[in-house]
């Protein structure tokens, strides 16, 4: 048994033993039997505590009902206590949690009588108030024996759990047809006619047409062979580029005002959910304090979960990050790149221009919160913010002139108008000559 796992006598037990002995000795030496009456409660408590002293440490097991929840949702942390001797009276728990979690009871502390209440009530409700990875625990567990005579305190600090709070995707939909994409397998109709499922027309037979495509009724009526042509199906390849280098504004969590990073992460989650649900391939490039983190394109709910998991790890850079403005590797020409950024530095817009020059269709989503708290107490700060804001407007205007759309995130339908314009002007993009 390790020293940390031992049952130790408490101050209460020391008081009971010493008070009983002192009062009893005085009663004998002073020949005052009435002092024995005063000594009786202490003697009783001391004997009771010694007789029911536990000898082996209780076994405790912590668990979380869910390892991942969406921000704003709740789960329950539970503690199971196994007392092989049945001598543990009370078990008290204090749970440590990180920022952006709420607990019920508010202070994260519960105490139960193990014998009478069992360990069922040793549960603490945990509600995440912002996306991210939250450390739940370790819990400090203290068990006491009869008359709080002996105490056992858990010493393990490693028994913490990680709770992943996935971003709660903003509401988003897009009814716009797809932008030009190069693939030929998928659920979207290609502008070209080829093998597919959706009917396009009936046309005269050409060399190379498959025999099973021959439309016999039309061929018999006209006397010449006709075939049924179809629109080709293709995949849409959407790349979400999340610029998490800076977090502008103060986050109020899921119930409060969002910061720029909140908007970017939730919007990215919403766009990913939309395109994944339509069967499109969605890739993610996250630029944060660790550098570039890439998730290759794929489809399906499992992939969506992976994207949300990676988005939940986003952390802004605390120090100045050397953002060289280069485009990440693995972006295939023709992909639709949705860049989500607060555009706090010119490097983000420069990167968008570079990507567009490499033949990518780029759409920039401005994630700056609509009402960033302006520090009017310091006139210098207010002035520098104003200057930066004017510079930012000029940079956005200049980028718009190069053909890159910059839109603010407004939730459902945010990108419809821009995607419609991109579709209208869609054509083979040519890599710009440098």
């Amino acid at each position, binding site marked *: 048994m390790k020293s940390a796992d031992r049952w130790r006598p408490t101050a*209460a037990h020391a008081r009971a*033993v010493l008070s009983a*002995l002192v009062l009893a000795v005085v009663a004998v030496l002073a020949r005052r039997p009435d002092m024995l*009456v005063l000594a*009786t409660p202490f003697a009783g408590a001391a004997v009771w505590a*010694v007789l029911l002293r536990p000898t082996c440490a209780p076994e405790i097991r912590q668990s979380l009902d869910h390892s991942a929840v969406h921000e704003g949702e709740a*789960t329950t942390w539970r503690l199971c206590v196994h007392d092989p001797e049945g001598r543990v009276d009370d078990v008290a728990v*204090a749970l440590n949690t990180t920022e952006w979690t709420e607990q019920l009871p508010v202070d994260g502390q519960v*105490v139960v009588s193990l014998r009478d209440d069992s360990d069922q009530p040793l549960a603490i409700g945990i509600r995440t108030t912002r996306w991210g990875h939250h450390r739940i625990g370790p819990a400090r567990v203290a068990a006491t024996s009869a008359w709080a005579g002996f105490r056992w305190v858990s010493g393990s600090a490693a028994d913490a759990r990680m709770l992943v709070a996935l971003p709660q995707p903003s509401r988003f939909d897009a009814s716009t047809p797809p932008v030009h994409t190069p693939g030929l397998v998928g659920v979207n109709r290609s502008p070209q006619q080829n093998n597919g499922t959706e009917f396009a027309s009936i046309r005269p037979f050409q060399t190379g047409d498959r025999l099973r495509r021959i439309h016999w009724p039309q061929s018999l009526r006209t006397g010449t062979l006709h075939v049924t042509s179809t629109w080709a199906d293709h995949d849409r390849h959407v790349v979400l580029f999340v610029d998490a280098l800076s977090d502008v504004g103060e986050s109020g969590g899921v119930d409060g005002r969002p910061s720029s990073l909140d908007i970017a992460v939730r919007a990215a989650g919403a766009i990913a959910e939309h395109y994944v649900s339509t069967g499109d391939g969605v890739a993610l490039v996250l630029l944060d304090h660790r550098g570039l983190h890439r998730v290759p394109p794929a489809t399906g709910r499992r992939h969506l979960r992976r994207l949300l998991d990676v988005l939940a790890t986003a952390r802004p850079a605390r120090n100045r990050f050397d953002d060289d403005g280069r485009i990440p590797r693995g972006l295939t020409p023709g992909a639709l790149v949705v860049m989500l950024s607060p555009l706090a530095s010119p490097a983000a817009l420069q990167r968008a221009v570079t990507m567009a020059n490499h033949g990518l269709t780029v759409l920039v989503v401005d994630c700056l919160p609509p009402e960033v708290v302006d520090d009017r107490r310091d006139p210098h700060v207010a002035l520098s913010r104003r200057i930066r804001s004017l510079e930012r407007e000029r940079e956005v205007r200049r980028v718009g002139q190069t053909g890159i759309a910059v839109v603010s995130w407004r939730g459902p339908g945010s990108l419809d108008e821009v995607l419609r314009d991109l579709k209208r002007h869609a054509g083979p993009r040519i890599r710009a000559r440098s």
Partner: protein
Amino acid sequence: MSDQLTSGPSRPWGHALVAAVTMRTLVLTSPLLAVGCTWLAAHRTMPAVGIVLVLLAAACAARPDSHLGLLVVVVIGIQWLATVHNRTTPWSVGAAVALAVFHASMAAATVASPAAPWTRAMCRRWVRRLVILIAGSAGTWLIVSAVNRHRPASGSVLVVASLVALAIAGLWARDGTIRAHPPE
């Protein structure tokens, strides 16, 4: 996943505070009750001792997991010894009740932090055990009264035998307290 915090215990902060405040109030008032019993038994009291006890009790209420409680018991014992001369006064049971409440409330206050709400089962168990201790004190008083009526011989043999018995009890308690495994 649930949308609300529904699965955890839903006792509010107030419930926790009721238990914590009650225990600390008992820690604060029970020494005064003992002083009252002493005054009723002796028809006189020492005001200075009362003031010292109030200060010590306040410190005990603030830090229940300390050894200050032992000092409170010693002071009450000395005052009883110095002022009360009736060996069979029933007020000794009152003083024993006050000391039992003091000890139990201080011990209970160390079980959990004030923020942790107590369950009904815990309250019931602590009160039940406290009543057993009080009943034991009343039983001791009955025995002391009965024995004192017969005027037992105050011989040195009885004193020595009592001291030996106390020494054995002390050693047993020490072994049970310090050693990892209690004596069988």
